[in-house]
């Protein structure tokens, strides 16, 4: 029987469908080991970076936490109140503990999809396993941080997230790096399993560096009446980012929603899409993206809705704001209907800041630059994500800093 390793080896030179093709051998694989410690005991510069991506040192504000630096898992714990509700551990630990977990491994993300999935199999460096137990409603968010502390490192994580039937949770994942890190490659595989009647909100914030490359590969499988909400944000410059996560609404009345806010600055090359496949009666989907391109940023904003079953419905909305003549936004919305009574729609609008809006705000006493900042800030309205208030304020603060710099 061919193993996933065999498939990976065959795909190791296979370029991704989109995005610049990277020579994965240019990055280092070796790095030191980090000793386990509580998040609050981490060096200040690491802590500050992790807070920026929504990962907090205070244990009581998160139901469970996972922290990985380079290839080392330094912390993982569930707050005592939630001990019988959720599980969080390194994925290697989980695979050793649960024999059944192998059935979830490379199931909805294909190991031979491209050279990056292949790399994540061949040179696999941990990742997390999160499981929300049956019927448990976890009222405060769980958090996970994937941190890179070594320059030019290649980090490959593989995460498995399972929301058991009737459970509810919100997971915040922050991916970031140390201020001394300029280059590197992060490959993040994530497989989400949303079982019957479960609801999972997954919020991911990426903060990379100017010469850093990122290739997340993720998919979600949603069963009867399940709900999957994915929020993605990226505000800092990077060299290249390419991802195209997929949600398979497999069960009856399964729902999926992708919210994306991207602020492309510097010379960033960003190619991000979201795909929803409606595979059963009553499935619903929504893809909402807001992209801003400043400086010389090139952004591809893709979306794909696939109606495979009758009585399904999905909508795709992409708005782009272009702040510089050297920037590019390419919106690529796609709809594919394979059944008669599937209702798919999209709207896409790309343009510069409207003069009419600026002048209106100026007539309210805002200066031109204040008006522009207000419009850009409003364009990235994170309130659509339904985040915890403190995180929403933190993100808003980051957006304010970013927009101030760009305008």
């Amino acid at each position: 029987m061919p193993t996933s390793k065999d498939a990976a080896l065959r795909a190791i030179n296979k370029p991704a469908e989109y995005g610049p093709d990277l020579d994965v051998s240019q990055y280092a694989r070796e790095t030191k080991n980090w000793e386990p410690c509580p998040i609050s005991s981490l060096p200040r510069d690491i802590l500050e970076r992790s807070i920026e991506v929504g990962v907090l040192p205070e244990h009581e504000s998160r139901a469970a936490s996972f922290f990985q630096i380079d290839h080392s898992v330094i912390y993982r714990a569930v707050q005592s109140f939630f001990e019988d509700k959720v599980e969080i551990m390194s994925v290697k630990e989980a695979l050793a503990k649960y024999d059944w977990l192998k059935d979830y491994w490379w199931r909805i993300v294909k190991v031979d999809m491209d050279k990056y999935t292949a790399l994540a199999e061949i040179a696999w460096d941990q990742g997390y396993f999160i499981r929300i137990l049956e019927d448990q409603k976890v009222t405060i968010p769980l958090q996970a941080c994937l941190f890179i502390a070594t320059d030019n490192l290649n980090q490959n994580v593989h995460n498995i997230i399972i929301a058991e039937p009737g459970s509810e949770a919100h997971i915040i994942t922050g991916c970031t790096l140390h201020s001394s890190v300029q280059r590197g490659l992060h490959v993040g595989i994530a497989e989400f399993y949303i079982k019957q009647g479960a609801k999972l909100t997954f919020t991911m914030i990426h903060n990379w560096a100017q010469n850093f490359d990122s290739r997340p590969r993720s998919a979600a499988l949603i069963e009867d009446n399940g709900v999957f909400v994915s929020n993605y944000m990226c505000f800092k410059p990077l060299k290249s980012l390419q991802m195209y996560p997929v949600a398979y609404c497999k069960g009856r009345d399964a729902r999926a929603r992708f919210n994306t806010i991207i602020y492309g600055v510097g010379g960033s090359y960003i190619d991000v899409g979201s795909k929803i496949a409606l595979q059963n009666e009553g499935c619903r989907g929504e893809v909402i993206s807001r992209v801003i391109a400043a400086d010389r940023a090139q952004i591809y904003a893709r979306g794909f809705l696939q109606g495979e079953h009758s009585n399904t419905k999905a909508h795709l909305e992409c708005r782009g704001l272009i702040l510089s003549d050297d920037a590019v936004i390419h919106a690529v919305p796609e709809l594919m209907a394979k059944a008669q009574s599937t209702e798919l729609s999209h709207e896409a609008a790309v343009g510069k800041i409207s003069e009419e809006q600026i002048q209106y705000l100026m007539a309210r006493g805002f200066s031109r630059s204040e008006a522009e900042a207000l419009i850009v800030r409003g364009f990235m309205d994170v309130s659509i994500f339904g985040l915890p208030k403190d995180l929403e304020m933190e993100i808003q603060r980051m957006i304010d800093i970013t927009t101030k710099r760009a305008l």
Partner: protein
Amino acid sequence: MVENILEVRNLSVEVSGRRVLSNIDLEIPKGEVHVLFGPNGSGKSSLIMAILGFPAYRIVSGRIIFKGKDITDLPIDERVKMGISVAFQNPPAIRGVKLGEVLKHLLPNEKKANDLLKKVKFPQIFLERDINLGFSGGEIKKSEILQVLAHGGDFVILDEPDSGVDVENLRILGGVINDMLHERSALIITHLGIILQYINADVAHVLMNGVIACSGPPTKILGQILNEGYAWCEKCLQVKTQRCEL
């Protein structure tokens, strides 16, 4: 001599190379309320956009003097800061920018802002809404008047405050506008003159094809327009090159 809050001197304006206003002279003494009549496309909105300094309304000749200062070359925000408050007819919707944010900028005192909200009978929840996005005609008028009140300038420009508003809301807005004008000067555009049922105006001007065709007592001019239509003004323009005084 009466002090003028606004003087428009020999103003000619172009939009995309097309002449929309020609040699407009207009003086509004401090404390007076002037109304501007005129058929669709006669240049009423162009005149207020030019007074406010919207760049698309290019001033070909003439000056605009506000409170004795030449503001012809100032940007919009600086004119507004000198005390011009405006209610637009068709303001743009801006996603993610909340009415509350704009209101807070105009009037940082939250208690006073809430009092104004009650005055125009606007529910608090509107502050959380994206400005003008999905607002009904009446809601837009209320929101605009609310912003004028919050700004509190001593010269008020209202562009058709009475169009597209139902009877109930017209009564509320008419009362609010009347209160507001007791201590302010104003230039009010009205197409049908309905607002005159609620306020006392001092002088009316009729704008025809970018020219002020006549000026005089508001009720008298409105009566003529309602009886004979703007054709009467057209005739008037042909007879005299000067504006007629009723």
